[in-house]
C-alpha cells in the first residue's frame, strides 16, 4: 500500500483533462478549492462534501501531558483540531478496491 503519492500536480492535471481550461488556470482552481475549504474551517464551519466526507473543527481542552523521555509533566494548552469523517461511499469505495488485492500479497 501507499506505493505512490498524489499531489496538487496530479489534481491539476485531472482538472485540465476534464475541463477545457489551460494548465495554469486548472492549477489555480485546485488552489482556490483548497483555499475555500480552509477559509470555511477557519471560520469554524463544518465542510461537508457529499460522497467524500466532512471536515469539522473540534475544540480541545487543556490537559496535562508528559514528556515521554523525561517523565516531566507539561500542560497541553487548549487548541483546535481538525477532524475528517469519511463518508460511507468513500469507505466502501476503498474497501471494495483494496480488500481482494491484499489476499495475494
Amino acid at each position: 500500500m501507499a506505493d505512490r503519492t498524489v499531489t496538487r500536480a496530479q489534481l491539476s492535471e485531472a482538472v485540465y483533462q476534464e475541463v477545457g481550461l489551460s494548465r495554469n488556470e486548472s492549477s489555480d482552481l485546485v488552489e482556490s478549492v483548497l483555499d475555500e475549504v480552509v477559509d470555511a474551517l477557519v471560520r469554524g464551519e463544518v465542510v461537508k462534501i457529499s460522497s467524500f466526507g466532512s471536515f469539522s473543527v473540534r475544540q480541545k481542552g487543556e490537559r496535562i501531558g508528559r514528556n515521554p523521555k523525561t517523565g516531566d509533566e507539561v500542560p497541553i494548552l487548549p487548541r483546535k483540531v481538525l477532524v475528517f469523517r469519511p463518508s460511507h461511499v468513500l469507505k466502501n469505495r476503498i474497501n471494495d478496491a483494496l480488500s481482494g488485492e491484499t489476499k495475494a500479497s
Partner: protein
Amino acid sequence: MTKSELILRLSEANPHLYQRDVERIVSTIFDEVSWAMARGDRVELRGFGAFSVKKREARIGRNPRTGTAVSVKEKFVPFFKTGKQLRERLNDND
C-alpha cells in the same frame, strides 16, 4: 459549507466560468483523491493535509450485548492528517 455552497462561492469568484464547469472541477478534485485512496495511494497536499489509507487487521470482536465472539474481517480506513499550516491557521485567530 456544503459542496454546493463551495461551488457557488467558486462560481462567484470566477464569473468567466460556467457553473457546470465549476461543478466538474470540484467533483474531479474530490474524485481524484477518492480514487487515489482506493488504489492505496497517499494524497499529500502541502499546507492542507495528507490523506492515506490504514489497514485494520482481521480480529475477533465481541457482540457487546451478548458477549459472543464474532470474527471481524480486515478492513481499510481512510485517514486524514492535518497539514502544519492549516493546524496553525486554526489556532492563530484567538
